């Protein structure tokens, strides 16, 4: 059965006065320190529950990820390549058949894993979790999740903060190497989303753990 290993970044990241270049630097610092954090907790992931989280809290609702989770978590890639047209793809982009993991699918697993962590490990009620990603797709400026963490189950895991709930969470999932640019984008999204508010932000990074056939989940507290 796959597992999730949870790590907490030891300091709250303050983003209010950071320029884009400084956000990049901060993201690089986070990226390079992720491998040195101590694990806070680990838990087996029940595929049926994960599948239900996927149905309720993932944007694209890929059917039956529980059937495929093991393949994704151990990094199985399509070994065959389909025939592709002789002409070049437009704007020098790669054909889909030449791409490895689909970012959409990994993002889907990331969102499902985050809600799984909240509900099944940190005991939050599902009705406290607002999934606003569809609104984001419709052009609204919003984080992926708005979490009414009434019992401070998540907040208590993070370093001390005076910020209030709701918790605004952004999820980034990685199936390959951790790309600091995506962490940087996540921080910038938090910076914009938290502007002129007193809310606490949370950046959740789901990184495929190739050794242990599961995912590492990193919780990073963000403040304005």
């Amino acid at each position, binding site marked *: 059965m796959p597992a999730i290993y949870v790590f907490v970044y030891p300091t709250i990241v303050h983003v209010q006065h950071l320029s884009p270049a400084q956000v990049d630097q901060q993201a690089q610092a986070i990226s390079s320190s992720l491998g040195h954090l101590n694990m806070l907790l680990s838990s087996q992931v029940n595929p049926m529950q994960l599948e239900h989280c996927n149905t309720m809290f993932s944007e694209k609702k890929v059917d039956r990820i529980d059937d495929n989770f093991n393949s994704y978590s151990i990094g199985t890639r399509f070994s065959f390549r389909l025939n592709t047209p002789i002409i070049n793809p437009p704007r020098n982009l790669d054909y889909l058949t030449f791409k490895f993991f689909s970012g959409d699918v990994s993002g889907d697993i990331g969102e499902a894993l985050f809600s799984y962590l909240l509900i099944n490990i940190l005991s939050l009620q599902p009705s406290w979790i607002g999934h606003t990603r569809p609104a984001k797709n419709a052009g609204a400026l919003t984080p992926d999740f708005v979490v009414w963490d009434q019992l401070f189950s998540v907040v208590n895991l993070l370093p001390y903060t005076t910020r209030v709930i709701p918790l605004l969470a952004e999820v980034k999932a990685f199936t390959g190497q951790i790309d600091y640019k995506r962490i940087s984008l996540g921080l*910038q999204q938090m910076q914009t989303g938290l502007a002129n508010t007193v809310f606490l932000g949370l950046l959740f990074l789901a990184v495929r753990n190739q050794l242990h056939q599961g995912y590492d989940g990193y919780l990073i507290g963000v403040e304005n």
Partner: protein
Amino acid sequence: MDYDFAQAIWAIHEVEKNIWLGDMREAKRIADSAIEEVEAKKIKAPQATANRVREILKQKRKDAKGKTAFYKRQWVADQVLKTLRKAEINMTDNLYGVLLNYLSDLRDSITYLIKTMSQTTLPNEEKPERKIQVYQGDGYRYTIHHFPEKTEVRAILDKLPKLNIVMMKTELSNFGYALENLFEAKFSKAFMLYSEKMYVQVLSQEKQAKLLFYTPELADKEEKIRLKAREILNLFSP
């Protein structure tokens, strides 16, 4: 101003839960009552702010045309942030407005869906799938969804289930089931049931329950599944 975020999040979740069940009328009722409650308080600023922020974002994305992918997103985020600070836009308003807009969009979609489902004059190829029948049990509502290799029973319980696993194992063994792979957390349960002619995956999360039946093709399959589903769901709401 203090906004009731908990209420808005709860309403969205309840609406999505009922859409999942297939009970569109209940989903619309919840969305209607949540929106009416907000309208009664005459809260209009958040939605206006959310729309304004959306326009700003749209405009900055247009302005960023021609920039490379990563730099474009970084540039847009930076420009939007500067504009928000300059205009002193309160993102708390924006966030609450986004939730209300989302709820309102959900209501519009459901209303449209209910309307198209009730259209009987549409030609065959344009008719939406047949209406899902919502069955009422003792302490729960449920629907049955057929897929090529399985039948899914979705239920919403009136109360949080209090499962006594020892008692449940005994009860289920009386029905001819063996219970395996039990998973328990505060608000969720999952297990598998094996019997001579059926394999069932059972899952509950808060007040939602899902039963996946894998059976051979039988003449009275739906009736048997309904019977078995009720036996299992009755254990969830004693």
